[in-house]
């Protein structure tokens, strides 16, 4: 163990933290997209990640697709699930109270979890890395190529979303719905289509995160809740509705978790993100990057 010095171990944990952190950031962005347009927190967000991973395993291993088509097919399948959630559940319950809405998305999440358990069973599944299986040694730190893929996928998604929301008509229309749905409707934006799009987009992003992380952590049917909860932690810490905040907070949570696993106790690593979530909710519910006035206006 002498060959791995303190510095190298530190770097190794940081790298692991950034990798999972990128996934939490993507989950958080998924929450934000739906929240921005509908003011709903979708408790099934974590299940989208789980389904993404398992669908990729299905398309790649069972159907024998090459990796890229399997990735795209998995994302499309989960986007379809998001569509079903919006079209047949959320739209039907649009007059429901907040309490009912929470119960509805929880119900949908355990429906997905139960379905996944029936189809894939209780065992974790592995997926080969997108490229190469060995790890690269750099300054005494072992880097899995898949970790770089995770960062690349996350970076691409964040870049595409930024362009989408700043340049495209649909992106701007979605932001307008977030800002003021009534005014958006008055200027002719089809709010309903935007809601529908937001669910598909957010499901697709969750799925992409799921496919990217599966080669590193494996994937099983009951992974969704914890991933969702940690992603929500990132969303709150970054200020609900803020994309940049979600990115930074996701990486922070990943780092905190990874360092806790390395230096304190690996058993409690899952608790770190949750404790941070509770502290954020209790003491700074507007998040690190949200403003207090904006948080006061939000409906929960």
């Amino acid at each position, binding site marked *: 163990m002498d060959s791995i010095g303190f510095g190298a171990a530190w770097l190794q944990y940081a790298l692991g933290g950034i990798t999972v952190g990128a996934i939490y950031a993507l989950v958080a962005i998924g929450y934000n997209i739906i929240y921005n347009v509908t003011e709903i927190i979708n408790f099934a967000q974590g299940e989208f990640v789980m389904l993404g991973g398992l669908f990729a395993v299905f398309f790649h291993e069972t159907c024998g697709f090459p990796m890229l088509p399997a990735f795209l097919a998995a994302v499309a399948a989960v986007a379809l699930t998001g569509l079903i959630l919006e079209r047949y559940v959320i739209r039907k319950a649009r007059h429901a109270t907040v309490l009912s809405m929470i119960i509805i998305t929880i119900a949908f999440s*355990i429906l997905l*979890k*139960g379905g996944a358990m*029936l189809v894939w069973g209780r065992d974790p599944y592995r997926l080969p890395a997108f490229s190469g299986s060995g790890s690269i040694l750099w300054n005494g730190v072992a880097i899995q190529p898949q970790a770089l893929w995770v960062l690349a996928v996350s970076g691409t998604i964040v870049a595409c979303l930024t362009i989408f929301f700043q340049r495209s008509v649909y992106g701007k229309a979605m932001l307008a719905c977030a800002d003021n749905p009534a005014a958006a409707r008055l200027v002719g934006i089809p709010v309903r289509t935007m809601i529908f799009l937001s669910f598909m987009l957010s499901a697709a992003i969750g799925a992409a995160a799921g496919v990217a992380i599966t080669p590193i952590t494996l994937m099983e049917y009951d992974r969704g809740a914890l991933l969702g909860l940690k992603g929500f932690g990132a969303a709150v810490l970054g200020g609900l509705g803020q994309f940049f905040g979600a990115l930074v907070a996701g990486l922070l949570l990943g780092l905190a978790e990874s360092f806790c696993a390395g230096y304190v106790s690996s058993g409690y690593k899952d608790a770190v993100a949750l404790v941070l979530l509770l502290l954020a909710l*209790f003491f700074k519910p507007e998040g690190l990057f949200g403003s207090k006035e904006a948080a006061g206006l939000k409906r929960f």
Partner: protein
Amino acid sequence: MSPRKLVPIGVFAAFMAAFPWIVAPFESVSHYTDVMVFAGIFCLVTIGLSLLMGFAGQISLAQAAFFGIGAYVSAILTGRFGWNPWAAMPAGAVVCAAVAWIVGVPALRLKGHYLAMATLGFGVIVHIILNEEVEWTGGPSGMVDIPGLSIAGTPLLSETAWYYLVWTFVAAALLFSYHVLHSRVGRALRAIHEEEKAAEAMGVPVASYKVQVFVYSAVLASLAGSLYTHYVTFLTPSSFDLMWSIRFVLMVVVGGMQSLWGALLGTVFLTFVGNEWLQVFADFEVLVYGAILLLVVLWVPQGLVVWMQERLRLRRAADLSRSE
């Protein structure tokens, strides 16, 4: 309570008292007494949750955690330190009340989605602690050889004896909750559910009432946990995970959030579904729970019991207008 309301309650109580004797002669259903012991234990949890959700309008996805804290405090105090179970039970309740108060004061300032996520996070943290503190809780493999209960030196061995003990607790909890609901506090809770700001303006101490109901529901869950511990005499953390918190919410929602009877019936119904009728299809259990929950919230959001009451009232009104 009006005499007209007392009659069905009397019939119900008589049925509940006779239940073990009704099912005992029939081989295929004689173990229903055992299922009803579990149903009664879960009823203690859901009566508290019904007060919190249906009347105060606050959600908690942490009830399994409080259930677990009660269970483990009882198990550790009796198994490790040789306490009398009857002394360990209130000790567990006190611990639970303290934890619920510490979590509740900041958490109940949050609303809706934030509160749900906060209680969810807290529940998962408790579950992680139960798994990790191997020295105290036995970790994932759990604790065994927890002593049973005895009353006045006579150990409670038969399921029938347990049945009466547990349902006496349920009856007491129902009675107490009924009185709470029909007092000043109950009216205040309903006002909070209706419109928090208006309630506050009318001088209802909103924050403190919400925390009090939360603590009350945690204490009931803790008592249920203690009874559970001594009935099954072994514990694993998997009985106190997130899925159980969701099950408790489901039990309350299916019967009807705004009715204590709804919580009672929903709990008994779903305990039978889980312990009996779905045993054969264990893999379907999660799926079926999700489907039931979704269907109920979408189509009968008031819950089955309240829905039936409404239908009965409508029919009675229709009969009346026809006879005129």
